[in-house]
């Protein structure tokens, strides 16, 4: 398999890994929030909100998988000269998804009662961070569309050495 077909397969797989990891973390976070927003396990004290093994493995496994697959996607993008939109888009999507959990359950808490400001405020901050990542991703995407899908110009290019041959005036020669 050539470099480009291999890169396409790798990019599709790593994008699938990133999206799966974000979905897993998103759902596991919602599960913990429905339980009251915190959980613990182990230690000498009696725990009122015990973490299930599924919550622990999905949250930690999801975070590690997200880092690994995002790094893989980024490396493949570099290797195959792909458009460099991925990392900003991944971070933006992650903060938007998790921020939505905070905002939704902050406004309408699963345990009932009024607005939970301790969730709503981080939710708004998460969305601000999502915008902070989405803007450069969008700018790069627009730039890419303006170029008509042409690859990005290289950041560094080979130094150009210009040589000038000076011709001496024969009359000035001593």
């Amino acid at each position: 398999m050539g470099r480009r077909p291999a890169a396409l397969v790798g990019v599709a797989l790593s994008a699938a890994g990133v999206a799966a990891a974000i979905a897993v973390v998103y759902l596991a976070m919602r599960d913990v929030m429905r339980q009251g927003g915190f959980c613990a396990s182990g230690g000498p004290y009696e725990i009122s909100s015990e973490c299930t093994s599924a919550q622990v493995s999905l949250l930690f496994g999801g975070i590690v998988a997200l880092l690994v697959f995002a790094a893989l996607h980024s490396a493949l993008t570099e290797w195959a000269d792909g458009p460099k939109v991925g990392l900003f888009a991944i971070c933006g999507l992650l903060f938007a998804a998790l921020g939505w959990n905070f905002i939704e359950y902050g406004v309408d808490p699963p345990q009932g009662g009024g607005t939970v400001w301790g969730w709503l405020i981080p939710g708004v901050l998460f969305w601000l961070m999502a915008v902070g990542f989405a803007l450069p991703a969008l700018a790069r995407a627009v730039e890419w569309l303006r170029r008509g899908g042409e690859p990005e110009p290289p950041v560094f290019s080979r130094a150009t050495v210009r040589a000038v041959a000076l011709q001496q005036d024969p009359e000035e020669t001593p």
Partner: protein
Amino acid sequence: VTRAWTFAFLAASAVGGAAGIVIGWAIADGAL
């Protein structure tokens, strides 16, 4: 690097991402 290659690259990411959401959702739904 050609224009078609850049489009193919983004399409692969989008298709993989869409499949990943379905897979991740199914994994988490089954585990929780």
